[in-house]
């Protein structure tokens, strides 16, 4: 059977499972809809959190990025896992004890201010929306490449599926669907990794295989990869070659951003107990770590395979995967010196170009590879069976859909709960709030789908916004809300606004305002600036609060109360 038939079968089966689970776990109340009734066992919640968190970017793009960046790609690995330590230690248990539905709920009550709540709602909506558009685009791409339907139809199919189980099941439906999606995506990620690790280094565990010795010629994989890279004018794979200041700041921004993302935080409102919230973060990280420790192995295997396949190969004799990716335009070959042989090397490296390439008659790098195809093309490069390729497609879809659903829920609860119930129309009945939440999620999916098909130019670059803004706004406000009884409304609001504006302006200036990398402050790129924004937030908050009155007694009492686990009920709206 060919890849396409396998893809239809596997994607068909997995989608039927998601829909079946959604019907089984319907939501009956607002509590079911927002926080799954607060009755999700910690290990199940951990698995759902992992699926919620790992998006199309983790599944498809990350290994490809590491493959091309080598050591420098560590910023994603540490950045997107280390935040869970902060979540478990500094945020999750206390927010669970607080026992409401949303992050703006906490900000609004802790800082006794409708303004603070609205600033938080605005951030939550902005962060979640930019994120979800990218997911819908990923769904459309996966469908169109492997099911050969037009891209627009791919997005529409994705919209219908998400709509179905998110509207029906709310958080409850989403949580249990995400468990199924986690199983699909991790299986789809591990199977090709294990196969390739066996083939290349004879070790079934990719995490160990990364340090293994190549079966083909007996050299250690990483040594071989360093040699291959240097031979082609690239930097060594395992060593740092750019300033590590930026690496530091980007890693920190990703960690702090992770701990501040509303769709991640809200997951910890769904477990029954405070102790459950703590351990649930641990389970989530175990499930995430399984993929995140495998990704660098895939990256190194794929890089080695790829270089060996194309290096000095005659264009007429390249394998079939090369041709099929060429037709998508994501891989392209241009025979600059007309010798019919592929020259792949770093033509930005001036010494290499002068000393080596010129002598060999090379006239520029002839092969361009889109980083995103590494994970998808990897099974084909390694000659794995067609069903493995199909499985990877199903895994990519599971990753994109599960994240999209979690984000859409945050959007719907921000609108129905934070804006409608707590601001515009406080006397709304629970039944009507539930209807409003379902309408909000429907509108959000359709709008996200529309932007997935017609992406505004900024979408590709806004991931930096999402993490940077979450790090610079939510993270400090929540942490100080728990750990400082003295922190007051004036301090928190001025801190959030400072962090937000500083980070947004810096990113805007360097992405669209004509800023050049030479002008970076301390060499910090826009991706890492959220860390500095967070520091400013802390400084401004602490300074302003020192000169303004302490928060009211009942708020201080509330802080004392969330610090101890006893007495946590299920999350409620009262």
């Amino acid at each position, binding site marked *: 059977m060919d890849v396409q038939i396998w893809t239809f079968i596997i994607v068909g089966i997995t989608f039927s499972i998601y829909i079946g689970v959604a019907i089984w776990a319907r939501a009956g109340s607002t509590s079911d809809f927002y926080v799954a009734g607060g009755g999700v066992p910690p290990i199940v919640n951990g698995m759902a959190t992992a699926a919620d968190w790992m998006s199309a970017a983790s599944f498809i793009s990350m290994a490809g990025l590491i493959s091309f960046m080598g050591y420098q790609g560590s910023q994603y690995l540490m950045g997107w896992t280390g935040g869970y330590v902060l979540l478990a*230690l500094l945020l999750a248990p206390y927010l669970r004890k607080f026992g409401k539905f949303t992050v703006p709920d906490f900000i609004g009550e802790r800082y006794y201010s409708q303004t603070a709540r609205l600033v938080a709602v605005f951030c939550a909506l902005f962060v979640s929306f930019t994120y979800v558009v990218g997911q819908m685009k990923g769904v459309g791409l996966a469908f169109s490449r492997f099911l050969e339907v037009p891209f627009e139809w791919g997005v529409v199919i994705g919209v219908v599926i998400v709509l179905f189980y998110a509207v029906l099941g709310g958080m409850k439906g989403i949580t249990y669907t995400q468990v199924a999606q986690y199983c699909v995506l991790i299986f789809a990620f591990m199977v090709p990794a294990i196969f390739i690790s066996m083939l290349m280094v004879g070790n079934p565990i990719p995490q160990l295989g990364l340090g293994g010795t190549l079966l083909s010629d007996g050299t250690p994989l990483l040594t071989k990869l360093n040699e291959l890279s240097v031979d082609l004018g690239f930097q060594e794979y395992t060593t740092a070659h750019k300033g590590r200041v930026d690496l530091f700041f980007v890693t920190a921004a990703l960690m702090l951003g992770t701990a501040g993302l509303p769709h991640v935080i809200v997951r910890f409102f769904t477990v029954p107990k405070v102790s459950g919230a703590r351990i649930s973060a641990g389970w989530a990280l175990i499930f995430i770590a399984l993929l995140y420790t495998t990704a660098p192995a895939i990256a190194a295997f794929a890089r080695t395979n790829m270089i060996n396949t194309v290096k000095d190969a005659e264009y007429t004799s390249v394998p079939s995967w090369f041709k099929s990716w060429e037709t998508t335009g994501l891989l392209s070959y241009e025979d600059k010196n007309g010798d019919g042989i592929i020259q792949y090397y770093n033509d930005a490296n001036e010494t290499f170009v002068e000393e080596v390439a010129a002598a060999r008659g090379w006239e520029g790098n002839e092969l361009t590879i889109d980083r995103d195809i590494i994970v998808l093309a990897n099974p084909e490069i390694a000659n794995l069976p067609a069903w493995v390729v199909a499985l990877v497609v199903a895994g990519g879809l599971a990753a994109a859909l599960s994240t999209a659903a979690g984000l859409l829920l945050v959007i719907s609860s921000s609108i129905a709960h934070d804006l409608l119930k707590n601001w515009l129309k406080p006397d709304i009945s629970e039944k009507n709030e539930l209807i409003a939440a379902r309408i909000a999620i429907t509108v959000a999916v359709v709008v996200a789908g529309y932007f997935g098909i017609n992406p505004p130019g900024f979408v590709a670059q806004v991931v930096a916004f999402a993490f940077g803004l979450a790090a610079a706004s939510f993270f400090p406000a929540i942490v100080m809300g728990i750990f400082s009884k003295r922190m007051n409304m004036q301090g928190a609001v001025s801190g959030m606004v400072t962090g937000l504006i500083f980070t947004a302006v810096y990113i805007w200036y360097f992405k669209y305002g004509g800023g050049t990398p030479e002008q970076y402050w301390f060499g910090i790129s826009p991706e890492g600036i959220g860390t500095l924004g967070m520091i400013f937030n802390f400084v401004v908050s602490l300074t302003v609060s020192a000169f303004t009155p302490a928060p009211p007694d009942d708020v201080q009492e509330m802080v004392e109360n969330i610090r101890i*686990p006893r007495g946590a009920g299920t999350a409620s709206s009262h």
Partner: protein
Amino acid sequence: MANKDLQGYWRTNVRYLIGLLVVWFLVSYGAGIIFAPALNEFTIGGFPLGFWFAQQGSIYVFVVLIFVYVYLMNRLDRKYDVDEK
């Protein structure tokens, strides 16, 4: 529960947090970034050590840290009798 006890509970909690976060910082930012070039002089299991910390080791330590925290806090909750029944 008495206010004084609560302060003791909270102080111990904060002490645990600081200890665990120091380890968190040392494995990722320390071994994985700041000292990575120096650690790369050593190899374990086929990995340059700094590279291993940055792409594997720090993640394993993160997982362990959370479970250590869970264990310590559950014990502390019982000691101060503030655990959930």
